[in-house]
């Protein structure tokens, strides 16, 4: 996953505000959290920035295995503890009496479930990092002590 600085260095750094952000730095942050796309930076579309643009796009390319929200589950690190299953606000909302109270999921609407001792993510479009009102949610990452969940 690139850092904000790495992305910023590749931007025009003119703070032109055409993307809707107040500075290029703010745009870099928005790129990283996937709230903005590279194409929303109008100056960088120009030919002279072609190399920078390609570099940016490759940096932001989701790694292999990542879903549409950029989520990767490193199953080899997962202990199957279910902390993410229970802490995910989507799981709590969609299965308040099951996952929400610490138990096994009782329906198919949850994002996380544990199979063979490792977490499996589904219904990924329900993730708060996805869709129109997306937010930079860390609810599944914070309770994981082994770093088994990552967003790229």
């Amino acid at each position, binding site marked *: 996953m690139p850092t904000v600085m790495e992305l910023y260095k590749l931007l025009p750094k003119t703070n032109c505000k055409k993307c809707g952000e107040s500075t290029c730095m703010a745009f870099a942050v928005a790129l990283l959290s996937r709230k903005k796309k590279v194409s929303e930076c109008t100056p960088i579309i120009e030919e002279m920035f072609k190399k920078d643009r390609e570099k940016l796009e490759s940096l932001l390319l989701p790694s292999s295995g990542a879903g549409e929200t950029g989520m990767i589950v490193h199953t080899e690190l997962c*202990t199957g503890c279910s902390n993410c299953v229970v802490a995910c606000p989507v799981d709590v909302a969609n299965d308040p009496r099951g996952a929400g*109270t*610490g138990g096994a999921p009782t329906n198919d609407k949850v994002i996380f*479930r*544990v199979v063979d*001792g490792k977490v499996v993510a589904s219904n990924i479009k329900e993730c708060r990092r996805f869709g129109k009102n997306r937010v930079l949610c860390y609810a599944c990452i914070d309770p994981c*002590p*082994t770093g088994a969940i990552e967003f790229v």
Partner: protein
Amino acid sequence: MITCTGCSLLCDDIDVVIENHRIKEVRNACRRGAAKLKGCRNRLRPSIDQTPADIDTSIKRAALILKNARSPMLYGWSNSTCEAQSNGIKLAKKLNAIIDDTSSFCQGLLIEKVLKKKFRACSLDDVKNKADVLVYWGSDAQDSQPRHLSRFSYFPRGESRQRGYEEDRIAIAIDVRESNTAKICKGHFYRIPLKGDREFILSLTGALSGKVPKHDAKRILELADIMKKAEFGAIFVGIGLTYSIKDDVDILVALGDMLPNFHILPMVGHYNMRGFNEALFKETGFVNRVRFDSTAVHENKYAIVEALKQKSIDALLVTGSDPLSCLPGSMISYLASIPVICIDPCVTLTSKISKITIPSAVSGIESGGSAVRMDGKVIELSGIVENNYLADTEILSRIMEEL
């Protein structure tokens, strides 16, 4: 839904897919539980003197060894059902044998305090519904009881804890090592030196009564303040703390007495260690290390470790444990020199040196029964996979019949 026997949480919300008399897929269990439910690669076969034998002959020979022994011991029990444990106690009585379990060098000290009501205890369901301050002390639940935090303590919404863990609960870790549990506790991790628990308890009890601690005063005062303000607190005592204060467990009783809103819960590893402790306690008033004669006598010399060190037993029946994989290495040679009878579903280190091996069904999976969760709640075990193995309970009954 079946019950997992991976650890003493006995999670009873597990789904499995069974194919060809084996569990093919496990849902909702943690990595430890899934491994336990899927079972070992090497099943044990009946043998006498490490030579294949039929199971009936093996059972007969086992009975003969126990009958002829001057001082036999029946040991293990923490991975056995309550029914098998109760049969084991009967067998010990019949043989005038010594009976001991893994709690002897594990959490036995604390379970005894719990059963004698020296600690204020509560159920894990109480923790889920009410607890706002959770202290993991010398315990890495994340690796040993992996769903402890998600099912009962930190992460679930409970009756009086509806808003989620960030707002409703504080988790604290006190440990020598920055364990996975400590990582979750982040700002509330207290690293102590090896064997530093006693001093930490003293500093904490001091701080609770208003004394300024000599070391790390700011953080210990902060901890005392959090604990004092707790509406419903729980201290989960891991084996790290138990070993460290084993010569003076009352210091923990004293800490508990200073914290009227706190509950003390020993963290148990094997799925039914507490079951054995409760059964023996009910029968004799002791949780382990008992010799039956005309009465039940409890002495430290009846602890597995002492009995082997003093070479005072001349036959050993092992079930629901693999002592060779956990006892101090220097004890192995004596253990290997006496006749050992091993009842287990799997090939174990102990079975490799045993005179008699008797394969059993995997309790809780291939045979049903009940077990006692770490907080004392009785949980039914499923026995859902069809098989031709004898349950450990039956094997013990058969040995008794042969006597």
